[in-house]
């Protein structure tokens, strides 16, 4: 359950960004999460709610922009349909091991806030 720690970091970054622009109330934050980042989107959203609860930013939304890793097969090329497994996947077309690239994204991408409302 390290999602709680991640939610706290996301909140810190978002607050810092708002405060650097003169302050205000957080409306929403969008985070990019890759499918190899070891993060459960549902748990992260739950942890986010707990993080903002009871404060001035209570009710601020967290949007998770989920990014699949690229799956590359030496025979079939890039395979868009998700193969079973996480780090080791077999090509759904020919059953050879796939090379998996990317998917490790974990970034605060955009956010919205209302100025001076806090």
């Amino acid at each position, binding site marked *: *359950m*390290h999602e709680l720690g991640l939610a706290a970091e996301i909140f*810190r970054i978002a607050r810092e*960004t708002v405060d650097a*622009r003169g302050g205000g109330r957080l409306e929403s934050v969008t985070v990019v999460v890759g499918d190899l980042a*070891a993060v459960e989107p549902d748990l992260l959203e739950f942890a986010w709610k707990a993080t903002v609860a009871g404060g001035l930013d209570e009710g601020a939304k967290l949007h998770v922009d989920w990014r699949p890793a690229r799956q590359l097969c030496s025979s079939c090329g890039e395979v868009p349909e998700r193969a079973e497994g996480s*780090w080791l996947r077999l090509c759904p077309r020919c059953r050879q091991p796939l090379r998996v690239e990317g998917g490790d994204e974990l970034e*605060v991408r955009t*956010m*919205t806030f209302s100025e001076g409302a806090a």
Partner: protein
Amino acid sequence: MTEIDVRRKVLEANASAARSLKETFGASGTLVVNLISSPGSGKTTLLEATARALKDRFRLGGLDGDIATERDAERLQRAGIPARQILTGGACHLDARQVEKALAEEGSQLAGLDALFIENVGNLICPTSYDLGEDFKVVLLSVVEGDDKPFKYPAIFSRAAFTVVTKCDLLPHVDFDLSAVREQVAALNPSAGFLVVSARSGEGMDAWYSLLEEKIAWKREAPAAALVAP
């Protein structure tokens, strides 16, 4: 309502602390090993044996992450090396800032070592995501845990430079298919090293010590700047 393009890594604070640790360890030529495993797979026992075997030739030290008790650090101290406990108070992993803080508080005892062993909180999942400024991660898997673990916890076995199978003296008593584990690790991480040891019987321990000696020598020789990730 104002929309802002942020584009900042969620783990940026950890990454920045890890970079600063890498610079410190690079300057002092200290090899740093991050040990990750389930609770009870033998991290502390492996380090106790390592301390006894190598402490006369190298300056070694340990940081022990746990939710509660100072037991592990005390065990390493009794084995003859300086060690400090990091109590996470419930958190399931260590992060780079905790390592920085512990080293700052401990002062000279854990400075300028030949090798620092960071024993992470017993957990095969969360510690995988946090860079502690180490040179490499080692994952331990004891033979009593079962031979299906690499595929069940693929992230750590993909990222660890070495897999160490521990408690191999118990192999005759458990259904543990060593070759199946070796194959799973090779499939996940073709360049990973694979060791089979028993700290209790001493089997395979010489290979572990040789590996550490080789890496300590490498870290000492390596120009500090080349080790700092861009």
